[in-house]
């Protein structure tokens, strides 16, 4: 179960739209086989593991979310728009605190864990960067 608040926060944001990231350009990695767009910018959400090794009072761990921003590398090699999109996503995701989306899954908070360097995705032939977050929510409660 993924917390819908994350997708819903990103998909209605006007600043992301102004940067070319409209609702249909935010996709989950597992729903994509080939590069989804041949121009403009698109965002890929990759929901990964939640690791609970440490003996803590709270028996749950943040789930790792990697957010990729891509644009075809034959159109541009300029990462500045990619960075601006990542910055906007940063402020949107880090602002989610004790909020629920249409699925009623509540996100406690989102923690920033770092960004990649400037990458070339040779599979999709794009320039790309990613940012990693820890999303603390209780997927067992729904």
């Amino acid at each position, binding site marked *: 179960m993924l917390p819908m608040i994350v997708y819903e926060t990103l998909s209605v944001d006007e600043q992301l739209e102004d940067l070319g990231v409209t609702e249909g350009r935010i996709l989950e*990695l597992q729903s*994509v086989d080939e590069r989804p767009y041949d121009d403009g910018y698109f965002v*890929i959400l*990759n929901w*990964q*593991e939640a*690791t609970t*090794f*440490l*003996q803590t009072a709270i028996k749950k761990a943040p789930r*790792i979310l*990697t957010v*990729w921003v*891509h644009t075809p590398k034959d159109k541009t090699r300029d990462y500045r728009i990619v960075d601006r999109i990542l910055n906007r996503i940063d402020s949107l995701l880090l602002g989610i605190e004790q909020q629920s989306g249409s699925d009623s899954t509540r996100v406690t908070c989102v923690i920033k864990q770092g960004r990649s360097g400037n*990458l*070339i*995705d*040779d*599979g*999709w032939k794009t320039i*790309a960067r*990613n940012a990693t977050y820890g999303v603390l929510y209780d997927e067992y409660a729904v």
Partner: protein
Amino acid sequence: MAKITVDFDDSRLRNNIKTFGNRLNKNVSAVMDYNSGYATGWLKSKAPWHDDTGAARSGLVAIPFSAGSKHELLMAYSVTYGIWLEVANSGQWAIITPGMRVIGAKIMNDMQHLIDSMTEGR
């Protein structure tokens, strides 16, 4: 008038404190050695791709380095296209990057238990 005498032998305490640094270092090395084996198995078993030649999966390794009080665990591919697997298609086949997070958390967990167990004199 009562008189109480306490005869306290602190030689064991002194010795434990004196040798703590070396014992900790030795035990951390052991934790890293153990986790190199754990990590190698984890990487090979969790790599998300379907094998063609099997070279990429079989070449995944985790190697511990301990020099003085510095300890490292190197996780790597043995095939030249390993970086492609980490980055291509939004990291669809990445294994080292999630491995760093998972194995890193496990090592920190082991360290916590190590410190706990060393208070028992080990």
